């Protein structure tokens, strides 16, 4: 049962206040539902650090504060490539509350933004760590013990058509993911170089589809390549069975949705 709520003016102070009996709350969409259900934590730690809500250009990327909400992402002029992803998350109320930082820790079947950020090769700046930002893939893998996120640095795709995102849900317009998939396919002379394809809701965390990336690299995004990519869509993934879909169903449709996404990207 929660015994206290501590609100700190800076993220660094919040970081120091954390401990095994504490839970950090940002937008509250994940933490408060656990608190309502009787989470075993004793302390809620929050921070009102204004830096958390910053969005600023840095180099050829954008640094997004961990406290930036989905609604802010959807509305910001420098984040148009992420706007369709942010708009696919929750309803308007959730988007006004849920944060970029929180989405990195969202358990299955949530975390669609993290899927997109992972495909874009985002890096994460952690609170109280001055060194280089860590790759998001590491943070997602170790997310039980990475500490507090200060910001996410997202490289902007060179051309808008290089990045695509698709979410399959049973209820429209708002529904939880049966699966989501994001692809970042930078092109050099028409050929894909450094493909990154990431699935959401196909494992405990967002997972990179290495086999798909291997198929795509060095190729034109043509029908034959797309067909081969779809064939290996679920290699290395571990889709769960939940109230939304069985593992079997997710395996069956993963290739179909990947194909639809790649075809859409090939057309644009």
């Amino acid at each position, binding site marked *: *049962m*929660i015994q206290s709520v501590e609100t700190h003016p800076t993220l660094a102070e919040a970081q120091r206040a954390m401990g095994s009996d504490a839970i950090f709350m940002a937008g509250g969409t994940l933490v408060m539902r656990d608190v*309502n*259900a*009787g989470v075993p934590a004793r302390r809620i730690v929050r921070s009102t650090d204004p830096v958390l809500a910053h969005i600023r250009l840095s180099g050829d990327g954008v640094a997004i504060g961990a406290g930036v909400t989905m609604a802010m992402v959807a509305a910001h002029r420098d984040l148009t490539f992420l706007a369709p992803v942010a708009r696919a998350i929750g309803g308007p109320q959730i988007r006004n509350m849920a944060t970029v930082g929180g989405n990195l820790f969202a358990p299955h079947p949530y975390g669609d933004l993290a899927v997109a950020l992972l495909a874009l090769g985002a890096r994460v700046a952690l609170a109280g760590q001055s060194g280089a930002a860590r790759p998001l893939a590491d943070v997602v893998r170790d997310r039980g013990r990475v500490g507090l996120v200060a910001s996410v640095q997202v490289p902007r795709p060179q051309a808008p058509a290089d990045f695509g995102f698709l979410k399959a849900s049973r209820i429209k317009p708002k529904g939880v993911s049966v699966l989501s998939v994001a692809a970042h396919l930078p092109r050099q002379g028409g050929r894909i170089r450094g493909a990154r394809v990431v699935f959401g809701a196909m494992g405990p965390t967002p997972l990179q589809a290495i086999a798909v990336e291997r198929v795509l690299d060095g190729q034109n995004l043509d029908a034959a390549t797309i067909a081969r990519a779809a064939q290996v869509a679920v290699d290395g993934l571990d889709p769960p069975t939940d109230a939304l879909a069985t593992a079997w169903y997710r395996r069956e449709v993963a290739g179909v949705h990947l194909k639809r996404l790649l075809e859409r990207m090939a057309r644009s």
Partner: protein
Amino acid sequence: MIEFRKEFFADERDDNLNEIGKPTRRQDILGHVTGRSPFFDDHLFDGLLHIRCVRSPHHHARIRRIDTAEAQAMPGVVRVLTGRDVPRNLNTLLSLLDFGIDDEPLLADSKVAYKGEPVAAIIAETEAQARAAVTKVRVDWEVRPHVLDVEEAIRPGAPVVCEVYKTNKFIYHGKYDHQKMRYGDVEAAFARADHIVEGRYQMSPIEQAPIETCGAIAAPETNDRYVCYTSTQALFFSLGTAAKVLTTPSNRFHFIGGTVGGGFGGKVDSVHEPIAILGAMLTGRPCKFAWDREEEMQVGAPRGAERWYIKDGVARDGRILARKFTGYFDSGAYTRLSSYAIIKSVGHLPGPYTIPNVHADVYCVYTNRTPATAMRGFGITGVDFAIEAHMDKVAEAVAMNPIDLRILNAYRDGDMKAHRREAKNCALIECCQVVADKAGIALQAASRAASSLRDGGGERGRLPAHTALDQHGVVTGIDTGGYARKTGAQGRPARHIEMPGYTMPTAASAGRAPAQSPARPGAASTAASPSTATEPPRPAPADGGNRRQGAMRFSAISGLRRR
């Protein structure tokens, strides 16, 4: 978009009505749009206590011991309830109509039969404190084998789900382990048919999922009464149930309801009111017992799953000559309203079609699933899905357009229905014609010319010359007791009997059966004269009437009694 097609049956209708056919404003809508409609939880009480249940993590287990000591000592805990605190800890909802044997505890004390079944209730100062204390109740479980499939549940040797019904089948009218319909002779008709079309249809349970979860608040009132604000859809049903399980005259309860945040059938089970009132009785303070969303979805009784087998005998020209149903309703661990759903269902067979030979055996089966209850047309919508899917299958077998097939077989005014009533005010043909028109489907000339008002009755209006009867599934030695019996002040509790399962009736037991039953015990395979149905109703024999008074009254409302 509603379209009134007033050209149909115009002479059967008086359109000079004040309200019908004209929009009118809901009387409660001002409260709704201003947020002032008083739902059960919109009543504030100082010192309100909160109740949360300790629930079984197992599908099926015996309870060896419940240790509440640690929970009792948790901060804010005022009282812990177990089955011992419930004055009459065994009930079945329809006992108020004398239908069925008490089979379900309010708080399980000897065994649990579904995952989430409550075994104790914590009463605490805050909901969070009640939640925390729930985790501190220690239950010593002896896990038993469970069964989750209806057909597996009725096989010999299956785990006994419900101790009252040891064959995992509800006993209908103290006589059969299923609800029966016999009309004509399906087997003889199958032998004559050009096609036999068979199908198996399975429905899932469906949660009503009202936005307001089920709940009740009870508080001590003046004059030694208790007020109870409740989300129930069935206020007097919940009042009667609370009075029964708390062995308290109902005039000591002041029930207030009627503002329900969505129900759809899921708010009739009357489990919240008695627990909230019991809490108020034992603590002397206002108590709220409400489910959270997870409970609503997990232990809230759904529309039960149904499995249907349908076998049709069909003539080459598409006429359905015979239809045989075997149905299994998944009642979950207890009866609740599934027994009644089946009565409705069998009264609905064989769907809106004139079929001269119909046979149905429909079982209310206990499994280790969440008990099922009411939901919008329960007992009807599930089997309608099966029937209409099957009609399409029949159409395919005889290479007919499925709408033509429906019009060919549809009830017409004056036809005899399988439950021995005359079909009146039929309109399926006209509906089919409009649907075909709107969907751009070309019908046969005969279908276009057909009318519900023509070609019915006559030969189609007569009872079959011969109805094949049998004693399949007869059960003897059952006394269903009688809670609401008017003769005798206390009513008579159900006799807990050893159920022999399928026992052929003795002459004596067959002789006790009422004369009105369509399928006469002891009269297997004898012809029922068509004239018997037109005899004027006879008064029931005095002793038989007394003995079976409750069940007879229920039969009357469910259309089983011949009129």
